[in-house]
């Protein structure tokens, strides 16, 4: 057993680290570090810098731009980006639509969409949840009726992250409402956001920022060539994505950066006795427990990567624990930051409180933590 990176991996890490130091624009880094809102341009600028370097989609197939990195290298890259305060990459194109097209798309679909995703020409969003179907995704109702060369889509999506920035949306839609099993009869469609009949309505979250939207489809015509995989096989596609999503849910790189910032903050903010709040034993105990949880998550994440490396298999249901612990840690981080701030410092408190509010979503979205527990109970335990 050896928990250290190998020499090659350390060289790799140093390469990433120094490239990031040289190429991550200072203004973007600052925005990330001050929790400022990132515009579409901010996000895409960073995307394109990475695309140009050839690092924007490490896990893609080589021919479409993948880097052939090992799982450990990919993890190092993500950690370093997080630690360097790089803006997040928008995952809907890179981690979701891209892999789906590579696995299920036609050659024509691949050629049409993959380069544009890679280069950051198109901004993608994800149309999964509906008002009546959150955790119970398979009960979705948005209807796609075949009419000649088109599907005609009617219905509503909700919680659509950054739909107001998006050029394209990939959707789960119901092709056949008559199936016995609700998982059957679902299709996976790619829809141009400029198609007539699409309305995007903001859904303001409690931090006062527009992150998510409702998207309404009113007789939206989608060419049949935008169907991915077979009609009625959308659930297979969705399940394929599930594993992808959870593996990166730990976000240990970002959390390590935030922990370092929390410690700095707590060392600078007053406690009740004139000393810094970090020296308050109650606060310190919470901070230490958080740090321990993050260490445990990080090593657990490495254990999964090591297993992937050895077996060549994607991780099983246990990877849900990365989502559960990763999001709990992210939430506790923001909570302790808010609590570390001097309550007399209105600006600081407000920025950190809003961030705390916003991060409450992480245990809800991407499969709520309750659903993740159900998954472990069912798949790992057989209950």
């Amino acid at each position: 057993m050896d928990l250290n990176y190998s020499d090659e991996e350390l060289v790799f890490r140093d390469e990433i680290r120094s490239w990031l130091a040289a190429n991550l624009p200072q203004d973007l880094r600052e925005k990330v570090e001050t929790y400022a809102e990132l515009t579409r341009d901010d996000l895409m600028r960073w995307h394109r810098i990475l695309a140009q370097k050839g690092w924007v989609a490490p896990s893609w197939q080589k021919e479409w731009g993948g880097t052939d990195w090992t799982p450990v290298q990919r993890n190092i890259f993500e950690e370093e980006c997080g630690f360097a305060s790089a803006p997040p990459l928008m995952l809907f194109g890179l981690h979701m639509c891209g892999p789906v097209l590579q696995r299920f798309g036609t050659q024509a679909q691949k050629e049409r969409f993959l380069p544009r995703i890679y280069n950051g020409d198109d901004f993608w969003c994800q149309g999964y949840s509906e008002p009546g179907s959150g955790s119970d995704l398979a009960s979705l109702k948005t209807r796609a009726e075949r009419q000649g060369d088109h599907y005609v889509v009617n219905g509503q999506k909700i919680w659509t992250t950054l739909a107001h920035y998006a050029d394209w949306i990939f959707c789960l839609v119901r092709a056949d409402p008559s199936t016995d099993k609700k998982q059957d009869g679902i299709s996976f469609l790619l829809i141009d956001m400029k198609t007539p009949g699409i309305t995007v309505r903001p859904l303001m979250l409690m931090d006062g920022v527009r992150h998510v939207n409702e998207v309404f489809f009113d007789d939206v015509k989608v060419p049949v060539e935008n169907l991915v995989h077979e009609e009625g096989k959308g659930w297979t596609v969705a399940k394929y994505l599930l594993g992808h999503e959870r593996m990166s849910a730990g976000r240990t790189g970002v959390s390590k950066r935030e922990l370092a910032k929390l410690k700095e903050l707590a060392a600078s903010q007053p406690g009740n006795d004139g000393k810094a709040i970090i020296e308050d034993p109650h606060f310190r105990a919470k901070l230490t427990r958080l740090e321990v949880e993050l260490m445990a998550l990080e090593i657990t994440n490495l254990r999964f990567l090591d297993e992937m490396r050895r077996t060549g298999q994607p991780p099983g249901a246990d990877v849900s624990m990365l989502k559960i612990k990763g999001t709990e840690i992210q939430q506790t981080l923001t909570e302790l930051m808010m609590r570390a701030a001097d309550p007399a410092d209105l600006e600081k408190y407000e920025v950190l409180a809003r961030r705390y509010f916003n991060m409450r979503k992480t245990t809800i979205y991407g499969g709520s933590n309750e659903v993740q527990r159900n998954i472990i109970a069912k798949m790992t335990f057989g209950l």
Partner: protein
Amino acid sequence: MNFESNEEQRLLTDSVRRFIDKDYDFEKRRKIIASPEGWDSNAWAALAEMGVTALALPAEYDGFDGGAVDLMGIMEAFGAGLVVEPFLPTVLAGRLVMAAGSEAQRRAILPRVASGELRLAFAHLERGARFDLSRVGAEAKRTGDAWTISGEKRAVVGAPVAGKLVVSARTPSGLGLFLIDTQDAELKRHATVDGMRVADVLLFNAKAELLGDGAATLAKIEEVNDFGTALVCAEAVGAMKYACDTTLDYLKTRKQFGVTIGSFQALQHRMVDMYIASELSRSMTCLACSKVDATGDAKERAHAVSAAKIKISDSARLISQEAVQLHGGMGMTEELKVSHTFRRLTVIAEQFGDEDYHLTRFGAL
């Protein structure tokens, strides 16, 4: 032993509740917090009309001789309705005028507070003090009979809408309490995340009127602060009750996998834990309010109040977080009231000292 409200308490609380239902619903509140002023003079007048602003002041100054127990039901109603009117800062500063001021000062100020004409705020907090009430840097200078204060008071709740401020400052004999006209201070106005209006109050040789100073001043501030803590606990109880009720409603109506989510045992048990936390918090609030009113012993009072605030801070966090989580995505939106209740409970958990502060304070008693 008796936990029931008396007739007057019941009648007044019912009026306040009816008023909130009718004239201070979620839509109305949304407009108020979006307005430039951030409070509603009509609502204030209505509360004054009902006698709320006079309740906790002595009868000799047009008040009703009430205490924390009399205000408990009203504060719960404010918590449930997320009322943002500057009642709490006004009543606290009013009681400081009562505790520290001269007869003439009481006569000049308190009847105007009781009638609702004058709103007050207590400008005490400074940078670096956190919850330690004794840390005051602002300095008062005396020239002849006239005082001026220089210093920076931060995050003063209610200051933007107060006619006068009660300000703490150092004097030659220790700590003093002063009255200043709000217009004599420079205010940096701010709307906080829970919809309240606060201000940083910057004082440059600001004209001030001494209420009182000397060795007993800190004890007076502590007493009024404990009074405020008990009241904010009651407000939290109302907000927690709302959060529990609305979450239970959601569990009963929201369907997933073909059944209401309230049929899932894991969620049921979490709902039970929220409910128990809310009920125990109510009990502790009863204790804090009754001790604040009844005891003359500062240690006994602090014991009850800190214990209550520990329980309320813990419960506020548990209940607000669970309420949002059990609501799923909907709980995250501005559109649902529960997200605003979440924010108010988040702030209350820290207001008048978070549970870490009160753990230390309780342990030292």
